[in-house]
């Protein structure tokens, strides 16, 4: 899941200031799960912006809509009849969603209401944690499905370091030591032999240095 957080309303207000008719578009996928950009959050931002405009005596017309996914054309198409009616779209999608909508409607003003943060999981109600850096070279099979690149604060492939204390990380005592988790789970699985191997540095060329990445599946293309 891609996680995100709402921008401060002051920043959103500044972005929408030149416009009088705003379409607020949420996304019912990842950002809804992390309570940043789903239908409820669209309602909250819309209500707050309407009240703010009324308080300041500004004319602001808002329409709310939430797409099932904001990064897939078939869902973005729902905006087709609305896009010309509004001066701008305030998107509560992730960065990919904002750009996908702008790609479909290049003449329209698409503004981001969220700061996209990380790929993560819902740890418990109201808590989301980062657990994948999208490095493009997954090694989870060797580390008992605990990513040392993401969850070890030092990104160590051959840990642990000397700073693990009581199962917590020295960088942040609230963070479980990823290497403690790896060793314990490998032990439970009878796979401690994985630790005897020395793992070479990650191949970051699969994530960085080649510009934006692209996946093409010929069997899925038209």
């Amino acid at each position, binding site marked *: 899941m891609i996680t995100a957080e709402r921008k401060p*309303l002051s920043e959103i207000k500044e972005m929408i200031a030149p416009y009088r008719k705003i379409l607020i578009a949420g996304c019912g996928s990842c950002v809804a799960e992390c309570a940043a950009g789903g239908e409820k959050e669209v309602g*909250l931002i819309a*209500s*707050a*912006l309407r*009240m703010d405009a*009324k*308080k300041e005596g500004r004319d602001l017309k808002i329409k709310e809509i939430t797409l099932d996914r904001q990064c897939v054309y078939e869902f973005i198409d729902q905006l087709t009849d609305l896009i010309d009616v509004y001066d701008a779209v305030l998107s509560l999608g992730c960065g990919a969603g904002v750009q996908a909508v702008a790609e479909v409607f290049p003449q329209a003003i698409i503004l981001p209401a969220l700061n996209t943060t990380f790929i993560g999981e819902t740890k418990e109600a109201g808590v989301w944690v980062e657990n994948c850096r999208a490095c493009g070279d997954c090694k989870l099979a060797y580390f008992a499905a605990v990513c040392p690149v993401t969850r070890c604060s030092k990104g160590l492939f051959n840990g642990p370091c000397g700073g693990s204390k009581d199962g917590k990380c020295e960088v942040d005592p609230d963070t479980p030591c990823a290497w403690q988790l790896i060793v314990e789970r490998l032990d439970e699985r009878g796979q401690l032999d994985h630790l005897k191997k020395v793992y070479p540095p990650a191949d970051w060329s699969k994530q960085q240095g080649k510009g934006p990445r692209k996946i093409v599946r010929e069997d899925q293309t038209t």
Partner: protein
Amino acid sequence: MGVERSKDMDQRTAGLNFAIFFCQQIDGKQDTNRRALEKELGSRIRFFPLPCSGRIEPLHLLRALESGADKVYIVTCAEGACRYREGNTRAKKRLTFAQGLIQEIGLELERLELIHLAPGTKTTIDELARGLIAREALIGPSPLAR
């Protein structure tokens, strides 16, 4: 909620509009008990009974303000006395979240207020509401009502 302000209103209430969300566990006969007050104040008061105060969402609170309430209450049972264990704790967190949002647009956070009943309190919703309204003589009309 109507925002029209009658000139002959009770002085205590200073012509303000109220929205009162409340846990219906606090008054088993809330449906009947609130009728007289609703009749008396008309559109100036709106009651929103909830099966548990934990059902409240920040959006409910914002929409109440947006619809013309000058003051919005969420009344919960006593701390530790929630029939569903932590409903009133959740209500408090959601109110705090909503307060943060209205502060960002320059509204006073006092326009949203949570009332935890004292442990063992026996009351009716109309008695409770009259008390809440009477103590609000100091808060002014919402800037949204202009």
